[in-house]
């Protein structure tokens, strides 16, 4: 027993002698909530990193600090020369990337995130139209709590808005997996210096190739089949060329993809199973209870509209972008993996594929109005 006691004593002596290498109290940190990345110069060799963090000493104040450097890590050390506190990277909620940077390719800028286990993999990513530093600076003038508010746009509105919500994990996973391409939401500032989601950035692996506008975003999200995406869709019912009713449905969609092959041609059948809820319709004379066909008409109108939009988007994708941004290649891979593994990311594959969309809308709830 004595030996034990002496051993434990030794242990404690060692415990006290050794320093606390990793201890750093929270008040010594700045806690960035948003990090923004831009190209510093036109040649694209330097990077400008802007962080937005709440000021610990003064309440209700957020600071925005841009620093330029050769690499992302370089900016961190340069930041040390200009500001007293170190950055606590673990709480970055949102990473913004300037448009030009996104065109250049993002992988080199997310590697420091993937590598660092302290950074959470569920942080949101977005592309900013123009420069991200300018965006932050401009928007922040209008909104003192941007650091808390902007990430919430992505985290809380998940269930009733159509836009691509992409986390770091989603992005890295799509980039590193064969047959997958990420998309990112696009942020922009309007004239009154308010931020808004303004479309979706289409990526080919980690390089952005185009920006789809908000109208294209809805079918894009539906076609990508993102887990239970929900949102409002307005509809118009026309009869004999005349508009007889319009309104809105709130829908939640599920996607099923089936692939078949005829020779060298791949035919994708995308089935959208959409459940919806009638939010409003404008014509007051039409009673849902009395008119059994009415809800069918609404369903049909929504179906038609979605199909039309989807086909338009697929056409654009095949003709213009030449990249599988609706996440269907993996279903082809699931059947002919060995054969397709090398060619599936070629532009020709998606250009030559035949993609058919079928939507089935079911509005099963129309509220308490008759």
């Amino acid at each position: 027993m004595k030996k034990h006691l002496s051993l434990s004593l030794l242990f404690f002596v060692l415990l006290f002698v050794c320093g606390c290498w990793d201890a750093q109290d929270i008040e010594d940190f700045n806690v960035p909530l948003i990090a923004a990345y831009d190209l510093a110069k036109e040649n694209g060799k330097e990077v400008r990193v802007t962080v937005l963090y709440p000021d610990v000493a003064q309440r209700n104040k957020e600071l925005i600090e841009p620093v330029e450097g050769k690499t992302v890590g370089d900016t961190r050390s340069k930041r040390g020369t200009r500001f007293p506190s170190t950055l606590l990277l673990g709480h970055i909620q949102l990473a913004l990337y300037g448009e030009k940077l996104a065109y250049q390719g993002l992988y080199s800028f997310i590697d420091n995130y993937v590598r660092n286990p302290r950074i959470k993999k569920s942080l949101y990513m977005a592309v900013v139209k123009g420069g991200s530093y300018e965006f932050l600076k401009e928007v922040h003038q209008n909104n003192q709590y941007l650091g808390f508010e902007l990430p919430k746009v992505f985290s809380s509105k998940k269930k009733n808005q159509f836009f691509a919500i992409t986390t770091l994990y989603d992005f890295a996973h799509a980039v590193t997996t064969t047959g997958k391409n990420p998309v990112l939401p696009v942020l922009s500032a309007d004239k009154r210096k308010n931020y808004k989601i303004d479309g979706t950035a289409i990526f080919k692996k980690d390089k952005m190739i185009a920006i789809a506008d908000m109208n294209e975003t809805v079918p894009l999200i539906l076609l990508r089949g993102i887990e239970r995406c929900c949102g409002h869709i307005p509809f118009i019912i026309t009869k004999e060329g005349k508009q007889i009713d319009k309104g809105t449905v709130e829908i939640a969609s599920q996607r099923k993809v089936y692939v078949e092959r005829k020779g060298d041609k791949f035919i994708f059948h995308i089935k959208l199973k959409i459940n919806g809820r009638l939010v409003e319709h404008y014509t007051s004379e039409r009673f849902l209870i009395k008119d059994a066909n009415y809800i069918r008409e609404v369903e049909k109108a929504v179906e038609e509209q979605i199909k039309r939009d989807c086909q338009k988007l697929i056409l654009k994708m095949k003709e213009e972008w030449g990249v599988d941004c609706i996440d269907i290649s993996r279903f082809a891979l699931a059947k002919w993996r060995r054969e397709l593994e090398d060619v599936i990311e070629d532009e020709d594959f998606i250009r030559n594929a035949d993609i058919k969309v079928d939507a089935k809308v079911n509005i099963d709830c129309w509220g308490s109005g008759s």
Partner: protein
Amino acid sequence: MDKDRFEITPKQLVFLVVGSEVATGILSLPRVLSAEAGHYAWLAVILGVTVPVLSIYFIVSLYKDFSEPDFIKVSQLLFGRFLGFVIVVLFSAYIVFFQSIVIRIFAEITKTFLLPRTPIFVILFLILFSVYYAVSKGAKTVARLNEILFWILLVDLLVIIILIPQGDWTAFLPLNELNVTGLLKGAKESFYSYAGIEFLFVAYVMVNRKEKILKAAFTGQLIVLLLYLMVVVVSLLILGPKSLQYLIWPVLDLLSVRQIAVLERLEIVFLVFWLGIGARPVLNLNLASAYSICRLLKLDNRKYYIWVTLLVVLAIYIIALIPDNLVVVFKLADFAGSMFLLISLGLPVLCHIVKFFRKGRIGYEKAS
């Protein structure tokens, strides 16, 4: 023999088998397997289980006929005094080597995820002190610790089940494009992940109801298989075989995929509970080697056991400090894996052969 401190029940053996096998390897298992077997990694896990199952069967059937199924006694009876001595020493050396690799990987994970600035020798010291403290208390304590840690492990690992709805089932398809060589390579890698079953060599004599050993060991093995299978399947579902290659310990990254309210960072919470689990095989095998050495040198367990334990722990500490970086560690881990094959399959088979040929010539059977 000091019966009091070195007696375990068959039920505890189940947990000991689980505890000896499931360790840090499980965190990198999906990557290692899918590197070779691609999306058939789950099949590789199942194929890999043949080695420990055979090993268990051989060990149990070997010891069955001996009146005193002690590893040291048996090996000296079979191979003669000197050769038996050498075998036991080699066995213990293997355990020390193997465990230092395990503990080093564990320390590396801790360094990467929790204490990036703390030197590795301090982390190793901390882990090995805990190990020493537990092992010095004897087999009973270790067995009980295994029992309670098993439940912690179960809760800890089952957390990843919540990710399943996010998964992408196409990662498993197609099923008809089996790459046999890749699968076999993967299976070979998965053999290594079952290392630890050689613990049974030494533990056999400690179990108080010998007739239940086979069943208990197989039950433990089944639990290990299911845990591995679950981890590999979920990893494939969430990350896919390609993405897995970008991550050193994909299971930990797996946990960070989804944000959990309040806990914020699931992987760190996971690692808090990890210590007991990561250090568990070292506990068990350290016990085995210290016990073997004590028996081999005919030292009084009561007096010298803790000193032998201390020596073994020190040896593990020093060997664990030798590799320069993670690449070397993983290379050594591969080497330890092949050693494991030799020990867990080769040794029992050798024993069986010798036993067969020397049958009747030496009086070791139960009848005599």
